[in-house]
């Protein structure tokens, strides 16, 4: 198994190295290198998956560590941990990655930096696998930043666009903010337990090396990393901008895998979160879910809608972790990976078509991503339409889809949590409210894009279905959005009971003092809350869809009318609650100003007047003592301050040496007397 893991880790890395150095010289700019490398990893992970299914053992786990470097009294160790979670994640990553690679061969065709693009895709795959495989905090942190790097590079792929380069920088910096928190958390744990390995850390926590308060803080610090990566409020701002990158990238990194890393981390670390920490996590997740959903409702850029929906879904997963249903958080991660990637790729195909159409018409003004320019495309792009519809249904949580299973489970978990702690009723509202909005804005998207009358006929005429290299992945992902693949070997579409829930079983918290509910209690609670939650969520999903039908299909209710009615919420939502503006005004600008001020002080004041001041004062004295008028290079700047006084003094002091010998003699006597006085005192 471990060798498989290493191979999975290194194959994409090799692809990256080959591509970056000789990619341009290879035939087809060497995309086949990356594609085959990733395909191989897919095979390997499938093999591992098979092994896992054969074993069918919830407890299965391989953990191997090596000493990275040795400081004498302390070895820094890193290693690989392979258990069912790893296997599933590996499968998800390599599958989506492979599909995206294939898709890109068509989507990015003829791009200026084609080979570079694939190099970075492979780099990303490598780093993402690294996160999944690492068995220690330091390793996770390392790959954590590396996925950040590849995301930076890919978002900035079309760096000629300022918006792209800005988005890239923003993504990296915002993630760094989270990473700092994460690093502090790592330091806290390392200081207490003296190791990075999960097992040592857990053991340390269990044996109470950290007081509950510290443990809470440390846990939240680590979670800060997740906030950054998984674009949770308040660090969600980078994800929508990240849509500046090529759409396949958005599908791979910013929908399916990287942004889910935060959830994965929280999943891994769940046992060390204290109740307080978990509550905070739950609220962050829940709030993000509803918050992003509200924004998504009013967006017109097709990718922006999907981006905010991603944020919102990630909120769900985090919420799941917070309320203790964290296995279902992971479950949702997996299902979501499939259909959200599918959605992005579909939107990509739509954009591709629009772009092509505009290109034909030599129209470089209109925005191919704006849904208001689309409409009625369903008969032109059948495959895309169908696949996208399926994914949308899944995302809205309609029965018979994978999304239904996972989301339903999360809602159940939330419900049971609230039943245990009624004071946290908000979480339920968040959860179900988000579900309602999700169904609504997703179908809004569908209707605006594929139904209704095309806005511009000539554009419509130039729309063509995308090549098979692009549609094949769509079909695959759409297929995977059905419940069947997750409930095997059972066939009950209304119960998430299946291989997943069996193999990925939840563990008890290791926080000392049994402050948390045990896994069993949580499962119990969810079991009770399951039926009501299910009914409620079905109801909500359909009402959301119905609302969308009324407003955007049958146009019974005018959206503009409502917007006018609710103008304030509308504006807030349309402008993403002005979060970016706030940061710009109250964080970024002030720190830039501070930097300028300090630099100015350092250079223009401290250096020029204080440091040089010594030289200048010396020089001043020398003039005062030296009775000389004239001046000299070092300290021309000094004059400003001291010049006038100097004139005054030297005017006085010139009296000393008039060149008249008798004055000198007076000074001799004066000197004698001075000495006498000195010795007297």
């Amino acid at each position, binding site marked *: 198994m471990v060798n498989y893991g290493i191979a999975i880790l290194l194959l994409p890395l090799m692809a990256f190295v080959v591509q970056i150095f000789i990619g341009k010289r290879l035939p087809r700019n060497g995309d086949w290198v990356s594609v085959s490398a990733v395909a191989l990893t897919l095979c390997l992970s499938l093999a591992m998956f098979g092994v896992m299914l054969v074993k069918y053992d919830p407890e299965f786990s391989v953990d191997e560590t090596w000493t990275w470097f040795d400081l004498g009294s*302390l070895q820094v160790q890193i290693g690989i941990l392979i258990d069912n979670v790893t296997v599933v994640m590996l499968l998800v990553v390599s599958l989506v990655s492979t599909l995206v690679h294939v898709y890109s061969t068509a989507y990015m065709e003829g791009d200026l930096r084609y080979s570079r693009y694939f190099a970075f895709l492979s780099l990303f795959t490598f780093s993402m696998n690294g996160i999944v495989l690492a068995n220690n905090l330091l390793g996770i942190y390392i*790959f954590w930043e590396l996925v950040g790097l590849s995301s930076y590079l890919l978002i900035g792929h079309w760096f000629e666009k*300022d918006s792209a*380069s800005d988005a890239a*920088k923003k993504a*990296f910096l915002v993630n760094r903010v989270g990473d700092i928190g994460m*690093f502090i958390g790592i330091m806290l744990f390392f200081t207490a337990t003296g190791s990075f390995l999960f097992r040592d850390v857990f053991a340390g926590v269990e044996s109470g090396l950290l007081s509950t308060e510290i443990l809470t803080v440390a846990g939240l610090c680590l979670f800060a990393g997740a906030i950054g990566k998984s674009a949770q409020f308040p660090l969600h701002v980078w994800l929508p901008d990240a849509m500046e990158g090529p759409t396949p990238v958005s599908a791979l990194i910013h929908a399916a895998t990287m942004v889910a890393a935060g959830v994965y981390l929280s999943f891994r670390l769940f046992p060390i979160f204290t109740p307080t920490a978990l509550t905070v996590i739950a609220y962050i997740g829940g709030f993000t879910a509803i918050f992003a959903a509200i924004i998504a409702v009013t967006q017109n850029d097709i990718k922006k809608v999907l981006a905010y929906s991603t944020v919102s879904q990630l909120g769900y997963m985090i919420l799941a972790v917070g309320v203790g249903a964290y296995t279902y958080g992971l479950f949702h991660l997996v299902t979501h990976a499939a259909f959200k990637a599918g959605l992005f790729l579909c939107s990509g195909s739509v954009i591709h078509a629009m772009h092509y159409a505009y290109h034909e018409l030599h129209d470089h003004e209109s925005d191919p991503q704006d849904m208001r320019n689309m409409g009625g495309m369903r008969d032109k792009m059948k495959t895309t339409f169908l696949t996208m519809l399926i994914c949308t249904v899944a995302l809205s949580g309609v029965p018979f889809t994978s999304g239904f299973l996972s989301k339903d489970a999360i809602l159940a978990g939330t419900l049971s949590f609230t039943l245990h702690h009624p004071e946290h009723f908000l979480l339920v509202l968040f959860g179900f409210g988000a579900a309602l909005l999700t169904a609504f804005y997703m179908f809004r998207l569908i209707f605006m894009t594929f139904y209704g009358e095309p806005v511009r006929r000539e554009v419509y005429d130039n729309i063509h279905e995308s090549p098979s290299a692009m549609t094949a992945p769509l079909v695959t992902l759409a297929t995977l959005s059905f419940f069947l693949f997750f409930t095997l070997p059972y066939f009950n579409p209304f119960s998430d009971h299946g291989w997943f829930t069996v193999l990925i079983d939840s563990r008890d918290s290791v926080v000392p003092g049994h402050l948390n509910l045990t896994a069993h209690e949580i499962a119990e609670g969810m079991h009770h809350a399951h039926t009501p939650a299910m009914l409620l969520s079905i109801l909500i999903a359909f009402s959301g869809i119905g609302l969308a039908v009324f407003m955007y299909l049958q146009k019974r209710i005018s959206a503009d009318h409502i917007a006018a009615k609710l103008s304030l919420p509308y504006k807030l939502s349309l402008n993403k609650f002005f979060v970016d503006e706030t940061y710009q005004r109250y964080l970024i600008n002030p720190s830039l100003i501070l930097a300028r001020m300090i630099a100015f002080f350092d250079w223009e004041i401290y250096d020029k007047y204080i440091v040089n001041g010594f030289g200048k004062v010396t020089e001043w004295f020398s003039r005062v003592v030296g009775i000389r008028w004239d001046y000299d*290079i070092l300290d021309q700047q000094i004059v400003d301050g001291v010049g006038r006084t100097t004139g005054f003094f030297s005017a006085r002091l010139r009296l000393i040496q008039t060149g008249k010998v008798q004055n000198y003699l007076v000074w001799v006597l004066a000197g004698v007397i001075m000495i006498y006085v000195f010795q007297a005192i």
Partner: protein
Amino acid sequence: MDFNILSWLIWVPVAGALVIVALPRDKKDVIKWVAASFTGLQLIFAIVLWMNFDKDFVGFQFMEKAAWIPSFNITYMLGVDGLSLPMVLLTALLSFLCVFVSWNIDKALKGYFSLFLLLDAGMMGVFVSLDFFLFYIFWEVMLLPMYFLIGIWGGPQREYAAIKFFLYTLFGSVLMLIAILALYFTCGRTFNMIELMATAPTALDTLSWWGFSGMKVVWILLFIGFAIKVPIFPFHTWLPLAHVEAPTAVSVILAGVLLKMGTYGLLRINFPMIPDGTVWFAGALAVLALINIIWGALCALAQTDLKKMVAYSSINHMGYVMLGMAAVVAAGAQHGSNSAAAQLGMNGAVLQMFNHGTITAMLFILVGVIYDRAHHRNIDGFGGLASKTPIYAGVVALAFFAGLGLPGLSGFISEAIIFLGAFPVYRTIVMISTLGILLNAAYFLWSYQRIFLGKLNEKYADLPEINGRELFTLVPLAVLVVLLGVYPSPIIDVMKTTMANIIELVQVSPLMIMP
């Protein structure tokens, strides 16, 4: 061993300088190649030294000792340990590369290279000399060539920069001289560092300067001398000026090697010889480190001159080194004798010294590359170069990411273990200084965006790509940066024994035992 390799390391460049002086001034290529070959020879010696170094040996190796001035008990004494060896390698490597960096110097080639080789010899001498007096001589000798190199081959403000550098550093070193003499007389008239390490910690207790504890005063005097080189916060303003005005190769040497001398001195002299002072001052050192980190980063963020930004980034990076050094007290009882933390901090500090040497050298070389082509360094004056010169952009990206401490590149490991080491002792300080990581990323990425991303600035539509010679100077450093980023053991294994030894030496201080 009878083959005095350390002496060779020092005197080979001197010989080279003499040869160059003897050459006729119009044989430019010959001069260059002579310089290259002599520094190359030195580099080979350094590598041989590395190969034969015994990692587990506590104390100094390849010792050489010869009487010099018996009447004043001054000896010519050389030796290396795990602390100086990385510095020796760094010096040799950078000197060799810098010969090629300064390949297209045309003004007074002869003088330039002879002075450069003398500078090389001086630096090497500082790192290998074990006699305090010898150390001081090399320390000062280095100033002269540096003064001329900045003053003659420097930028528009070169005269001012040169004299400022000279005055500033001399100020530090004369105070150091006083401290050296005080040590000499209080410790039984010896300059022998090994003996001083043994005797000084106790002997200094007897010393008293107008009521102050002499130990503290001596520590401070030495500290000022070294702090100016590092440079530590209030003494830092000579650095941006000198770095900006100096020619590329000299900036590389300045940032790559000279700054390390400050921290090297602290680790070699202050820590083992005056442990009480070290423990007494450690907290302040950490605070100064914090100031360096934040202050340097903020200043760098505000710069519009690329070279000045890099210069300030060195201030910021040297802050990490100091932070790691301050962690030495973690081994003390009052900090739960957490020797692991001390190890992390100290090793991190030295590793960071080495890594910063390579990274900042890359940065300055790259700045030189763009300056040779565009003849200005104004960050906002470029734009979109990445599409024009992808290779150059790529190398810069590597250097920048290394500078902002990206995992997988050498900068990360050293910074990470420095933080880990310092954290148990200085929680708050470390937490604040992690902001430095963010700011690093901010100024590096921001300037990268302004120079390379966005629309191509038409002025540079036909900017030539980086050429082979420049790549040749960069590739070795890049390889080191990546290699040590993935696998730092080569350096760590060499130095960990020595670091452990220094930590023990510091631990003898009574202040360490006191709760």
